[in-house]
């Protein structure tokens, strides 16, 4: 898996959005379990599992954003989702230690389920100050790691930053993630542009990310995909 331009993030507990998502033809479709309310995480996990087994997503690669292990939901996410063989798992609030723990659980499930070892790939989410400073180490933890997703909103929350449309406040972080991925020869996905109606702003923001060295960009709205593909063509 390499050189994908877009990842569309969709909530994992909405059948309608799971069904509609592939229409937009993102390179990667991220089915999100982390953003689901705690009381619906069990139900969302089962819905995503059944959706992957049932739906024909054609050329779209399926990635599942799992919960962190420390939340109490992450291990069960891996246990259930790995068995339906998504292309990759996305790991929020990544760190070297957390990736090692996830890899251990994932390898155990693969063995138990008779799956090809190492086939399910990993996308760490860089969204903490610590992850940002250790990004190169995170990228080299495992051969399963094929890229990283920079989530500026997570970082902004930790630092108490106010996000702006021109993104001056995240210039250093963006540059650091993009360069580390380039050095490692891996894909890098820039943070989503949060205004789904501002196509001009998205185009400008995606161009900035491309010029900083990112290989692609995340999207939270299917209508953003065509623009992202055009910019990262």
């Amino acid at each position, binding site marked *: 898996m390499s050189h994908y331009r877009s990842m569309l993030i969709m909530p994992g507990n909405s*059948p*309608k959005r799971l*069904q509609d998502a592939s229409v937009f033809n993102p390179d990667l479709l991220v089915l999100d379990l982390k953003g689901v309310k705690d009381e619906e995480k*069990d*139900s969302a996990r*089962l*819905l995503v599992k*059944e959706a992957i*087994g*049932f739906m024909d997503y054609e050329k779209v690669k399926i990635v599942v954003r799992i919960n962190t292990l420390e939340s109490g939901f992450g291990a069960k996410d891996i246990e259930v989702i790995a068995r339906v063989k998504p292309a990759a798992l996305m790991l929020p609030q990544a760190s070297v230690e957390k990736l090692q723990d996830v890899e251990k659980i994932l390898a155990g499930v693969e063995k138990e389920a008779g799956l090809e070892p190492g086939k399910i790939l990993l996308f760490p989410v860089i969204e903490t100050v610590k992850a940002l400073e250790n990004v190169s180490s995170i990228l080299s933890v495992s051969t399963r790691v094929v890229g990283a997703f920079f989530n500026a909103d997570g970082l902004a929350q930790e630092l108490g930053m106010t996000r702006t449309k021109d993104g001056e406040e995240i210039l250093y972080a963006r540059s650091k993630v993009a360069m580390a991925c380039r050095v490692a020869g891996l894909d890098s996905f820039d943070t989503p542009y949060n205004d789904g109606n501002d196509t001009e702003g998205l185009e400008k923001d995606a161009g900035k990310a491309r010029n900083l060295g990112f290989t692609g960009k995340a999207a939270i709205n299917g209508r953003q995909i065509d623009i992202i593909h055009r910019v990262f063509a």
Partner: protein
Amino acid sequence: MKITKTAQAGAVESSDVLITVAPNPEGGIKIELETKRVIEKQFGQQIEKVIRETVEALNVEDVIVKAQDKGALDYTYRARVQAALERAL
């Protein structure tokens, strides 16, 4: 395996289904489907089959399954029935 309480999963939203499961004092698997008449006529049997297969795959006995359908596909039925049953154990 018997469920011990009433539980729900899903939602009354487009493309989804709200599943409510409860112990069946009369025994067996009883399915109550609420949907548009046209859906019931065309897909009612298939929906009931999916619900029954999901219940049986989990080895659950003596259960009433109520489904309030809003155009859910088979995979959504499987997921919501399973979630409701796991919550009812």
